[in-house]
Structures are given as structure tokens and as C-alpha cells.
């Protein structure tokens, strides 16, 4: 499996040595001096970071590293104290969240936001952009939007079929399982025809049976020409599908590089995995004495 996936990887994402803040050959997002504090706590303090285009970038780090806050800042859901950032050359500082989304940078949420009391199909159709029927006056004249709405429905059904949710189209989203809601949220985000998809913990709470299909969906996003930036705690997912890994700790980018090498860096091991990553939890807490395996 992993060999097959690795073959899709695009080499040469970066220029020079892979170090925190290194330049990319074709950056999609460029972040400069973005800083955000909550009271005395500095949640995010990123000097310089570039996210490569048409690649899958993983943003990892321990709890409280500022990953989700950085997501919120980049998508306009929160505003930083200082800093600038640009998306495909357009400066996004001070741009409201809905305009960021209209530019093609779409996000999902750590706590899934399925619109519970809308049907699955309505959830999907809501995602489509440039709908004529969404204007208050034009909505009163069905002739203006009926044809477009039918086209949106076809597109929505195709996506739902891809995500194996087509049989649920008339159910309220509230009746879906946690994993299906994650899928629905991702599918809905794709309805906006995004350029950059930002996934906040796409694997959290998803049962193992759905994990594989979710991974495939993320890989397919890249195949379809999109750029993916995701926050994840699941190291298997990061190793298998990420082309580039950015490691954050205490609000700063402490390391970045291809997954094979970045995981071995001392800064990452210290910051993220801790010094006991190979030790059994029982030993760490001192509750259980583990007998060492033979030959070690």
C-alpha cells in the first residue's frame, strides 16, 4: 500500500535544506510573522512558513501547539495580533472567513460541523458556490435558479456516490455516524471547488473500517489537482499520505521536511513524541514493570 502511494509523491518540493521556514519551489500559502496570543499565552508565533502547491502537507505537534489556532487564523475565523499571509499571491490579512472560502481555500472543523437538521443532500447543495438562487430577490423567481439547482444536485450526487453516502441523501445529517459526518463534511467542502483543502483532524473519531476510505479520499484530492493541508495526530496517516510535514510546538514551527526524515529529527522527537516514544506507557507512568524482550 505505502509503496503505491509513495509513487504519487512529487519530489523537489523545497529549495535548499529542509529547515523550519525553508522556501518551496511552488508555494501556495506564504505565512510571515503571524503571531496570536490569548492573554499571556502565545498560541501561535510563526516566523515564516510556506505550504507547497499540489502536495499533501501535514501539520503535526503536541496538544496546545497552536495547530488549530493557525488554521483559524489562515481561514479568517480568528484574527492575529500581527503578521501577513498570502494565498496564491493574494494577501489574506483582514479578509473575512467567507471571502477566504470564496477564493478557494476551504476548511473542515476538528469538531465536525454537519448541519444536523438539513438532509445530507441539502448539506451538499449548500456547498456549491455562485448560486443564483441564494440572492434574496432572485430566490423568489424559480426560473432563474431551477436549472442551476438541478446541475448542483447532479454534482452533489456524484460526490456523495464517491463518498458512499448516496443512499443516505434524504436522511437528516444528524442521523449519520461520526465517521460518516466527517465524510459528509469533506464532500461538502469539495462542492465549493476548492484549490486548497484544509482538514482539521480528519481522522479523529473515525472507526478503522472508514479510515482506509478516508485516506484514499485525501490522496484523491491531490490527484484531482488540489492542495491539502491537514492537522492530524495519527502518525500512520501522516507517514502514509503526507508529502511534507510541518511540526509545531508551543506556537512555533520547530521542524519541517519529508515525513521519512522529519520524524527522525531530534527536535521533533523531543517536542512531539517525547523522550519515551518507544517505551510502554506502563513504564512511563511507573505502574507496570515490563520485562525486556529477549535479545534487547
Amino acid at each position, binding site marked *: 500500500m505505502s509503496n503505491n502511494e509513495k509513487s504519487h509523491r512529487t519530489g523537489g518540493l523545497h529549495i535548499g535544506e529542509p529547515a523550519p521556514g525553508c522556501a518551496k519551489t511552488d508555494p501556495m500559502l506564504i505565512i510571515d510573522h503571524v503571531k496570536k496570543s490569548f492573554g499571556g499565552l502565545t498560541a501561535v508565533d510563526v516566523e515564516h512558513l510556506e505550504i507547497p502547491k499540489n502536495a499533501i502537507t501535514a501539520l503535526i505537534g503536541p496538544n496546545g501547539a497552536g495547530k488549530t489556532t493557525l488554521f483559524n487564523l489562515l481561514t479568517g*475565523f480568528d484574527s492575529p495580533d500581527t503578521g501577513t499571509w498570502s494565498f496564491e499571491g493574494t494577501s489574506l490579512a483582514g479578509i473575512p472567513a467567507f*471571502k477566504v472560502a470564496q477564493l478557494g481555500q476551504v476548511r473542515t472543523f476538528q469538531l465536525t460541523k454537519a*448541519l444536523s*437538521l438539513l438532509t445530507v443532500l441539502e448539506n451538499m447543495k*449548500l456547498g456549491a458556490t455562485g448560486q*443564483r438562487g441564494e440572492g434574496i430577490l432572485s430566490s*423568489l423567481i*424559480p426560473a432563474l435558479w431551477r436549472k442551476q439547482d438541478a446541475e448542483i444536485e447532479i454534482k452533489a450526487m456524484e460526490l456523495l456516490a464517491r463518498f458512499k453516502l448516496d443512499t443516505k441523501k434524504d436522511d437528516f445529517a444528524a442521523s449519520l455516524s461520526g465517521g460518516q459526518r466527517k465524510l459528509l463534511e469533506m464532500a*461538502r467542502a469539495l462542492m465549493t471547488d476548492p484549490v486548497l483543502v484544509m482538514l482539521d483532524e480528519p481522522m479523529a473519531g473515525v472507526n478503522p473500517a472508514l479510515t482506509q476510505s478516508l485516506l484514499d479520499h485525501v490522496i484523491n484530492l491531490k490527484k484531482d489537482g488540489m492542495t491539502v493541508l491537514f492537522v492530524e495526530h495519527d502518525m500512520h496517516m501522516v507517514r502514509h499520505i503526507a508529502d511534507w510535514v510541518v511540526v509545531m510546538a508551543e506556537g512555533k514551527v520547530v521542524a519541517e521536511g519529508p515525513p521519512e526524515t522529519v520524524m527522525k529529527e531530534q527536535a521533533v522527537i523531543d517536542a512531539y513524541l517525547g523522550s519515551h516514544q518507544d517505551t510502554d506507557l506502563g513504564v512511563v507512568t511507573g505502574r507496570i514493570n515490563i520485562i525486556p524482550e529477549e535479545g534487547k
Partner: protein
Amino acid sequence: MDWGSILNNTIAAFLTPTTIAFALAALGLAMHFGFAGLLNFGIAGFMAIGGYGYAISVLTFGLPWWAGMMVGVVGSILFAIVLGLPTLRLRGDYLAIVTIAAAEIARLMFLTTAFTDVTGSADGLFGFNTRQDGTGFQNSNPFPSGDYGFGPLSFNHQTLWVLTFGIAILGLCLWLLWALMRSPWGRVIKGIREDEDAVRALGKNVFAYKMQALIIGGVFGGLGGIVFAAFSNVSPGVFVTSLTFFIWTSLLLGGAATILGPVIGAIIFWVLQAFLSNFLSQLALSGILPVSTTQASTLRFVLVGLGLMLLVIYRPQGIFGDKRELTFVK
């Protein structure tokens, strides 16, 4: 027990200008709360602005009735904008607090003696429906003088004109709400009710949509006040906070996220009110209830409160709602 009179008065409550005014205001709340999720506890304020806007422009500025009503509508639009600008960016609960306060401010402005010349203070305003110069609402009455209808549902020509006008306005508003909610615009509004951040993340201008919903519902409320004023007079004693809660009761009775529910809810509310008021005072008269007749008919408000509580606990979706679509427990 005079069952005949109880029945007569109960049936008469089916179709009155007040019932129509309630239905319009409840329809406005359906837009606000049922579809857009905006907690508006100031619908009485919207009604007051509508009613007074109409009355004042006729009495003080001498406008013809239709222009006066337009002023009432424009007034409720402005009220919605003033309320919405500072509060729609906040969480829903804050809108509830601000609207209840704003409705009280509006009422007290109409009550204060500082503007007695214009607002009539505690006496309110009257005599604006029939005008000497022939520009009043009743001057345009197409029905010849006389009595119409049969049994408990008989009206004089003046009431019939208010009813016809009210039903036309109500029909128009029902169509508007239905047309809006079946469209992609309605989909966005319902999405905002569920989770506005998710809708924002899909590139929709949530603030603008919430403002539009607040204005449309506010205009429905204003029209309710206008129909109310067209039937009788306006006075600050009518547009009190308890009016807001009676309209909420009508809305929840019918079903908040439905189109016809608020109308049916308003009818049931008034029919029940009429029945209880007559029934309870008859009980007191015949000595079954050990209270005076006045106390007995006030008892109905206690029962309304009790009914509202039971409704919210056991049937939050109302009579016509889809239980899955609107509940108070999420």
C-alpha cells in the same frame, strides 16, 4: 352554565383582526427563530413600530392610509437594521437580550409624556382609520354599510374591510415565506440556524443573510402591528412584553419551522383564549370556581403559561412541525 354563549364567543375568535395580527407576527417569528435561529424576544417592538408608524404618519403628517402603512413597514425595517448591526455578530443569546430591551425602549418612547403631541402618551392614538378628508383606511372601504356573515361569524362592513385587507396581507406574507424557504436562499438560512461557522466556511456571507432574515421577519411583525392598528387604535399598553410571549406561544403551538403552523397556532391561541375566558367566568358565575368572574378570566393567562411550558417540554416541534427538525434539546 350558558354553553350557547361560550360556544358563540369561542367560534367568533376564529376570524378577528387580532387573530390575523397575531398570525402575521408569529409568521415573522417563524422566519426569525424557526428558520434562521435568531432568538427575537422583541416582536412586540416591531409591531409597535409598525402600528405607530402608520398612526403617526396619518395623524401628524396627514399622509393617506396606504402611505402611512408604508412608513410603518419602513420603520420596522430600520428597527431591524438598528438591532441587527451590533448584535448579529454576537452569539444568539445576546440577540435575545438586546431585542427584549429594544422592544421595551420602543414602548417607553411611545409612553413618555415628552412626545404626547405625536404619540398620545398613555392614551395612545385613535381616529386615524376614518378621516374627514377621505384619505383614511375606512374611507377606502369597498363594502357598502351593513352586516355580513352569519351566526357568531358576523361582522359589520368596517370589520369586514379590515379582515379582507388583513387576510390579503397575510396571504402575501405566507407566499413570500414559502417562496423564500423552498429556494437556495432558504437553504442557506436553515444552514445558519444549524451552524453558522460551517456556512461561513462554505463562503456564504452569514451576517448579510442573518440581517435579511431579521428584516423580513421584522416587516411581518410590523405588518401585524399595522393590521392591529387598522382595526382599532394603538396604545402602549398593547405592545407590552407579554404580547411578545403570547406570539411565541402561538408560534410554538403551530410549529416554529413551518409555514402554516404560526397561522394555525395564532387561531388556536385565540380560540382557546376565548373559550377559557368564557368558560372560566361561567364556572365562577355558577359557583363551581370560588373566585370572582374577573379573577376567573385572568386565570386563563396562568393556563397559557402552563401550556407553553408543557408544549416546549413535550412537543417542541409544535402541532405541524417535524420533530426531527426543531427541538430545544440539541
